[in-house]
């Protein structure tokens, strides 16, 4: 009965409190707060005063769902009562830190915070909100791990997500969940966890914008430049197109085909300027055609090439000499050699830019009427 056993030097770290749930958590938190209020006292006195506090508080907490801070008042008041009943001097009188201006200023702030916290705890919705927040804690642990892992991977191995980086991220999530589950009680470990939490919150916006926003793609500067003029023209698979070669349904090359885009704008690979080309050496000089109203047309394909000898422009050689006829609308026309190909007019695709003028007959090609028929090249 009257055996004197050594008092425990510290609460068991790691704890099995994970299974006992909310009241134990509240008790731990409250006991830790009381201990920090006693931190100016020698360690053995603190232990003497607060030994067994968790067990007593846990029992009290288990009796009702009302938070301990509401039933017992703020931990600072509890600690002051404990001191006074134990015959010790109040904190402000004897502490090593306590009389300075800084200490008094922080004391005022601390009281304000405690006052606000007590007000919050008195709200009807507070217990429910705390309960839900506690339920969400594991999710936060995982997110915290992912965020810190993301930061470390990015800092040491670059921001692209490699398989190794992904494994590291998973490891960080697992470690963070484990730390959260263990609930460190040693002050410096708690401080470390607090710092990690703050850091995770701070980097969260950056991580989210990196995940949700457009990925930064690094492309060879030879193909893409930020010059707005370079983004004009026609591009296929990241390469600039210099000329277009229309074929009809029977697979025969067409000439003088004017192309408009879905906005009714002419589709022009170039407007004759050297800076239209982003490749180091431009193609052979291309020649536009002039329509019946005298307007220069760069969207009649294929564009003719200025011959090197200075003669009349010639049609460039075809990139692909043979195309199989299409199955469908053009099949009957293919059965009658020499007949005009009749491009099928798609419903609702009439260009909106208005009526186009007919093109004059190019020197090397048969007159290509814009709509609805196009003739086979004489070449």
């Amino acid at each position, binding site marked *: 009965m009257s055996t004197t056993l050594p008092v*425990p030097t510290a609460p068991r770290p790691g704890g099995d409190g994970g299974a006992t749930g909310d009241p134990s958590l509240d008790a731990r938190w409250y006991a830790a707060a009381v201990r920090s209020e006693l931190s100016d006292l020698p360690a053995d006195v603190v232990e003497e*005063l607060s*030994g067994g506090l968790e067990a*007593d508080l846990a029992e009290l907490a288990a009796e009702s769902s009302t938070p301990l801070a509401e039933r017992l008042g703020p931990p600072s008041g509890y600690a002051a009562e404990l001191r006074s*009943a134990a015959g010790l001097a109040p904190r402000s009188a004897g502490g090593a830190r306590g009389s300075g201006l800084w200490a008094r200023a922080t004391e005022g702030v601390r009281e304000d915070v405690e006052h606000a916290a007590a007000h919050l705890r008195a709200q009807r919705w507070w217990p429910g909100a705390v309960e839900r927040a506690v339920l969400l804690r594991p999710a936060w642990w995982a997110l915290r791990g992912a965020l810190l892992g993301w930061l470390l991977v990015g800092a040491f191995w670059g921001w692209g997500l490699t398989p190794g980086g992904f494994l590291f991220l998973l490891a960080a999530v697992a470690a963070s969940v484990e730390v959260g589950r263990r609930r460190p009680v040693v002050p410096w470990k708690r401080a470390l966890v607090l710092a990690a939490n703050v850091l995770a919150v701070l980097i969260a916006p950056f991580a989210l914008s990196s995940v949700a926003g457009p990925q930064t793609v690094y492309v060879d500067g030879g193909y893409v430049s930020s010059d707005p003029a370079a983004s004009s023209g026609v591009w296929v698979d990241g390469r600039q197109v210099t000329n277009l070669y229309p074929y009809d349904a029977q697979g025969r090359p067409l000439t003088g085909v004017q192309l408009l885009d879905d906005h009714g704008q002419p589709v022009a690979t170039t407007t004759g300027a050297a800076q239209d080309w982003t490749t180091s050496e431009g193609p052979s000089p291309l020649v536009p055609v002039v329509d019946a109203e005298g307007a220069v047309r760069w969207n009649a394909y294929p564009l003719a090439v200025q011959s090197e000898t200075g003669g009349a422009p010639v049609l460039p050689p075809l990139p692909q000499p043979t195309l199989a006829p299409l199955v469908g609308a053009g099949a009957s026309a293919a059965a009658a050699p020499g007949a005009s190909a009749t491009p099928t007019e798609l419903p609702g695709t009439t260009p909106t830019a208005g009526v186009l003028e007919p093109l004059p007959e190019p020197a090397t090609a048969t007159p290509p009427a814009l709509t609805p028929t196009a003739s086979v090249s004489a070449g």
Partner: protein
Amino acid sequence: MDATQLLKGVLDAAVLAVVEDDDGYGYDVVRRLRSAGLEDVGDASVYGTLRRLYAAGALSSYVVPSEEGPHRKYYGINARGRELLETQRKSWRAFSETVDHLLAPEGAPR
């Protein structure tokens, strides 16, 4: 009259009295005091008093390990505590008789 002020003066005796027959841990002692009628007694006051009485050598303490939760710290009275309790009983009787006498309505039979 502020009952908590009165309580302060007799808390030592009250705590010693509730552990006189049976050892108890902190919250257990609080509950015994409350069920005995001292409903306003503060948790921290009782714990502080237990620690002070222990430091003064009037109580012994021992720790009971628990598998499910934190350790529980029990307090039991010892010989010195019993002496102290006996002294306090005497002084309380003398004091309360004096105050009873003092506060008794005039002319009332004593």
